[in-house]
């Protein structure tokens, strides 16, 4: 039996407002596991609970019920988080730092020495094709360039588990292709990857297994090949809703 890198057992999360009134049940009794060495896709429409699930795996938010285990440890454990890299949905970067300083900052958070951080920053800047702008502040970068810096930052600690939240968001087709090639190369090297997307073609290209979420619940899970000839048809059958198409009717009328 394969070793599970991530395990969620009946995890639920309800957000509350300032007065502690429940506002939205983002995740509802979700159970899942990601095995060592696989590329696992968490798919679903916007607001389905993908990012909330990832934040619970990272220990950034606490579930109201259920249990999350990361490398068989609680997600708040420093030892568990030392083994992971994270690329958030939006490229959160300090705008006043240069691209090179940003990578070195995250290298520092991984506990790398100054010399090692500088070396890794040079390698990663080269890998994401930003060597010539390494000394420019990232606040002036385009969305795609910021995405590349964030991707480099997520890899700086040579993680065993890489969590990618919408990794191709904001990238042009060439960069999207490069990121997908990179994911395949990292997976071939034995890295476990958890990725979210609402772009089904991306998931079909890189994932070994996927889980489809809708309104915080799992509606399907399995290997790509097991879910039918077309992932898009399967996805729409599971989460499609005629209410989504009201706008077309409104425009006709």
């Amino acid at each position, binding site marked *: 039996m394969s070793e599970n890198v991530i395990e969620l057992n009946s995890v639920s999360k309800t957000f509350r407002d300032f007065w502690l009134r429940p506002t939205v049940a983002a995740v509802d009794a979700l159970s899942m596991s990601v095995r060592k060495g696989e590329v696992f896709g968490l798919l679903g429409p916007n607001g389905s609970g993908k990012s909330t699930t990832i934040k619970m795996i990272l*220990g950034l938010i606490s579930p109201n019920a259920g249990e999350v285990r990361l490398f068989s440890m609680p997600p708040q454990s420093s030892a568990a988080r*030392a083994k992971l890299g994270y690329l*958030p949905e939006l490229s*959160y970067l300090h705008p006043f730092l240069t691209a090179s300083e940003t990578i*070195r900052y995250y290298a520092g958070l991984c*506990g790398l020495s100054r010399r090692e951080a500088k070396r890794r920053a040079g390698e990663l800047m080269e890998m994401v094709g930003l060597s010539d702008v390494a000394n420019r502040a990232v606040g002036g970068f385009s969305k795609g360039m910021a995405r590349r810096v964030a991707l480099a930052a997520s890899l700086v600690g040579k993680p065993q588990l890489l969590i990618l939240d919408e990794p191709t968001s904001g990238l042009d087709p060439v960069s999207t292709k490069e990121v997908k090639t990179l994911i395949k190369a990292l997976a071939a090297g034995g890295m476990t990857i958890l990725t979210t997307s609402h772009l089904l073609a991306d998931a079909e290209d890189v994932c070994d297994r996927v889980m489809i979420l809708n309104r915080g619940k799992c509606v399907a899970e399995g290997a790509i090949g097991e879910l039918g000839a077309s992932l898009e048809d399967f996805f729409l059958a599971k989460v499609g809703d005629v209410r989504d198409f009201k706008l077309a009717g409104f425009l006709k009328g």
Partner: protein
Amino acid sequence: MRRWFAIAKATTLEILSEPLSLLLLLSALTLAVLAPALHYHQFGESTRMAREAGLSALFTFGTVFAVAGIFRSFRRELETGTAQMAMAHSVSRGVFFFAKFSGALAAYAVFAVILANVSFVMVCGAAVGGEIARRSGDIARLWAPALAAGLAVVVLAPAVAAALNRFWRVRFVLSAFAAAFSISSAGMAWFMDFPLAARLSGAWLVLAFPAAFHIAAASAFAVGMRQSFAVAATALTMTLSSCAVGNYYLADFLSKGGAVPWMYVAEALLASLPAVAAFVVLGVHLFERRDIA
């Protein structure tokens, strides 16, 4: 230690890269340089006026710099998601909070040292100017050396930063702070008077302790805004304690004509340390409880 250092360094750079920080520095320097010279009556106390203008500028602008700097830094980390990125690494929330507090304290130290240097130059310049005015009988020369030295920092620092930014793309605000630090330190070295520097440093230290307290309180306030009880308690305690810790020592120091005993500095430190520690502990506790979504 490396994680703490990385976060603290980034926080210092962040605060010193803020346009608001430079605006506060230049405003404080302008007050410290111009306020004593613009008084109509001097009464032969020009050096004392220069010293008190510098202390007032540090107390008022330093408090705003400390509170605004760390509050904006923490809120930006939480609202833009950089805290998420940091917390996804093996960094505990306690280390993150304390590192940001330390980084803000370092940024405040840079601000305070620049202001202290300029204030020292103003005091020495006023003494030199007083001698020139006495010998020449021309009272208009009283402030000439002090104003020339003080305004050199206010004008030259942004000018040097603008040139660095124009020709080498160096970050403007950060280089303005570096230039102000270098120019003011050179001015201090030029006028160096160790007994005077030792006397003034006691007063500057007395003001640094409440600033540390303000940074700790503002940090706790920034991470605990959703907990309404904590907000109310923090705000009330901050107001009461800042009055108690800050004003008393400063007022007493000034009333003694600037000769503050070192024992007094130790008392000020002892008075502020428990408050700083309490707010760091409160901040870490609030930060550990909150979701970083």
